[in-house]
C-alpha cells in the first residue's frame, strides 16, 4: 500500500495533505467539504482535496448521510467489543496496516483552532459510546478539552506523565498504535501548541 509521501515532501509545499490511512472516513469527508472552504477563506491558500489512495474505498465520495450510517454501524460494533474496556483505543477503520511509520509533518503555518468545529463534537460522542455514564463535572468544558482528556486517559497509548500530548501522540504513531487524527489536528494548531491546557497532559503541574 502506498502512503501519501508525507515525510518525504519538503516543508515548503503548500498543499495540506495528511496521512490518510489513519483516518476515519467521517473526518475525511468533512475535510473535503467543510475544512477546505473554511481554510481557503482564512489562509488564502489554494488547497487541493485529498487524492484518494487505495486505502479509502470508492465510498470516499459519499454524501454525509451515508457517512453517518456507516459510522453508526461502526459504532455499534465497537460498542459490543469494547463494552468491557473503558480505555481501549477506539478502533479506527483501517483496511491495511502499514509497515513504514510515516511521522506526519507539521505544516509551517499554525492554523488557529476552531473550537466549535462540529467534527469535534461528533468525534467526542463516538468515543463516549463505550462509557456507561456521561462524564461528570464537564459541563462548562469545551469539546476540544474533553477530546484531549479522553486521549490522555486512553491506556493503549501509554503513560501520560512527563510528556506533552503531541509527544505522546507521536510515540503512539511511531509504535503503530494508530492514534486519532482529530487529536493530532488539535495539537498542531496554534492554540494547541501554545496553551498549557491543550498542550500538556491533564496531570501537568500536579505530577
Amino acid at each position, binding site marked *: 500500500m502506498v502512503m501519501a509521501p508525507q515525510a518525504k515532501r519538503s516543508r515548503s509545499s503548500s498543499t495540506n495533505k495528511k496521512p490518510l490511512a489513519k483516518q476515519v472516513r467521517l473526518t475525511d469527508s468533512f475535510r473535503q467539504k467543510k475544512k477546505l472552504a473554511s481554510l481557503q477563506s482564512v489562509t488564502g491558500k489554494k488547497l487541493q482535496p485529498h487524492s484518494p489512495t487505495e486505502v479509502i474505498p470508492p465510498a470516499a465520495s459519499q454524501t454525509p448521510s451515508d457517512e453517518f450510517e456507516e459510522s453508526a454501524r461502526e459504532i455499534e460494533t465497537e460498542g459490543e467489543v469494547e463494552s468491557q474496556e473503558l480505555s481501549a483505543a477506539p478502533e479506527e477503520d483501517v483496511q491495511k496496516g502499514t509497515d513504514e511509520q510515516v511521522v506526519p509533518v507539521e505544516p509551517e503555518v499554525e492554523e488557529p483552532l476552531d473550537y466549535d468545529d462540529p467534527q469535534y463534537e461528533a468525534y467526542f460522542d463516538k468515543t463516549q459510546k463505550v462509557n456507561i455514564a456521561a462524564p461528570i463535572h464537564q459541563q462548562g468544558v469545551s469539546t476540544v478539552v474533553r477530546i484531549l482528556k479522553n486521549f490522555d486517559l486512553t491506556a493503549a497509548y*501509554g*503513560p501520560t506523565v512527563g510528556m506533552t500530548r503531541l509527544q505522546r501522540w507521536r510515540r503512539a504513531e*511511531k509504535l503503530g*498504535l494508530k492514534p486519532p487524527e482529530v487529536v493530532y489536528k488539535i495539537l498542531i494548531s496554534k492554540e494547541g501548541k501554545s496553551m498549557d491546557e491543550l498542550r500538556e497532559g491533564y496531570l501537568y503541574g500536579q505530577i
Partner: protein
Amino acid sequence: MNIMAPVASSSTLDIDYLLCDPKEDETFPTFERRASSRELISKYNDEFVLKNTEKTYEQQYASLYFLRLTVLKPRVSKVAAEAWNGMSILNQEVKAVDRVLDVRQGEFCWIVGTVYIEMTLKPNILDEITKEFWTTAPISKDKFADPENDAIMLEDESGRVNLVGSTIKSELLVTGCVVAVLGSETTSGDFDVVDIRFPQLAPQLPRKMSTGHERKYVALVSGLEVSGDVHESYETSMLFEYLMGELGGSDDSKHASEIIHVIVAGNSFSNRRSPLSRDDESPDNFQKKKKKYGYDSSSYNSKPTEALDCLLADLSASVSVDIMPGDQDPTNYSYPQQPINAALVPRSRRFLGSSFRSVSNPCWWDIEGLRILGTGGQPIDDIFKYIEGDDRLQMMETCLRWQHCAPTAPDTLWSYPFRDCDPFILNETPHLFFAGNQPEFKTKIIVGEDGQRVRLVAVPKFSETGKVVLVDVDSLAAEVVTFALNGTGRD
C-alpha cells in the same frame, strides 16, 4: 604498523647470528596490520548516547515498560500463535486472550505480558522505613533469589496475574522479560502454566565472508583496572606490548598483527586510593588537617588516568582501540553508560577520529561485516543476583532469546527513563555477543530457529585472570591468550 622480527625462527637461533656485527643489507620481515572497517552501528548506538539537551527526568519509568511490552508483544504473540493455535487440551481448543485479566476459570488460553517477580529477599526501601528498630545490619548477599517464596506474576496494561505450576518454576525468568504463557485459571485466581514461549532470536543479518586467506581477530579485554602505582601488575604492560606486537618471537608478532581491533570493555580505571592519602589518615595527621569545605581536591588520585592514557596512546598508534565504560569507570552509573569523556585521556585523544574511540555501554559494532553487541557486564551481573544458577552463558543466551539485552532495567539495574523507545530491545541478533568483567572465561555458540549463529563470550577480568580473548572474525572461533608471571599461580 611495522614490527621487526629476526629472520631465524623463534625456536632455534644460531649463536653466530647473535654475536656478530650488524650486516648492512640485512632485512627483516615486517608484519603490517591490514586496514579494516570497524564502525559503530549508529542506528542502535544513537539511542544509547543521550544528548544533554534532550535528557529529561520528568517522565516516569512506566513509559519504558509500556514501550517494551508494545514492541515485544507482537513478536511473542507470533511465536505463541505458531506453537499453540489449533492445539486442544482436554478437548478444548486454546485461544489467545488479549488482556491478562480476561482469563476465565477453566478455560485454556494464552496470554502475553511482562514478568514481574516479587522477591522477598530483594532489598526493599519500604521495609526499612516501616521497621521501627534496627536489629542487625542487613547481611550483604550475592543472590536475592528465594525460589520457595518468590511469586512470579505476569503483568500487562490491565493488571497482574499470579503464575503457578511446575513449568514456571523451572524456567529462567527475571523481572522485565516479555513472555507468552499457556494455561488456565485455578480456583484461587492464579494462572496455572502449562507452557511458555519467548520471542526467540531476532533475525540476523548474513555475514559477508571475506575471500582473503589472512585471519582477522578482534581482541576483547575487560577489567584492566590500571592503577598507575608501583604495584601495577606486570601483566598489564605485557598485554599492551603483545597487542602492539612487541612481545614474543616472530610467531607471536605475526599473530598480533592479525588483530585488527581491540575493545577494552569496562573497568579500565582502578578505584584504589593512592598510598599518599592513606598516610594522611593516621590519627596525628587527622587533627592537623585543616577542615576543608566542599570537595577536597588533594584526595584525587590522577595516576590511574595518566597510566591508562599512556597505555592507550601507545596502543592507538598501533591498532584501533575502542574503550567502553564499566561500572567503576568515571562516567554515569546508570545504564546505558555514556562514553568516557576523551578529555580524561588527553594523549589518546589525539587519535580520536582515527584509531581511538570512546563508546557507550552497551554498544553495537560492525567490524568487517561481523555484527557485535557488547556490554560491560552489568546486565548479566544483575540477572545473576536474581536467579538461582550461575551459568553466565545461559543468562546471555536467554537475553538473546528474550530479545532484550537488559531486562532487569529499570527494576534493579539503574536506567535512564526512556520515553520514546526502549533501546535495549534487540531488533537484530548479533554475530558476537560479549559481556565484560565476568568471573571467568566462557564461550559457546548458540543456534537459533532460523539458522542464526551467535558466539557468546564471557570476557573475564584481566586484573584477576590475565586473559584476553581473541575472536576470529571469519570463523567465529574464540581463543584466549593468558599473561602470567611464573610463580603467581595463574593458569
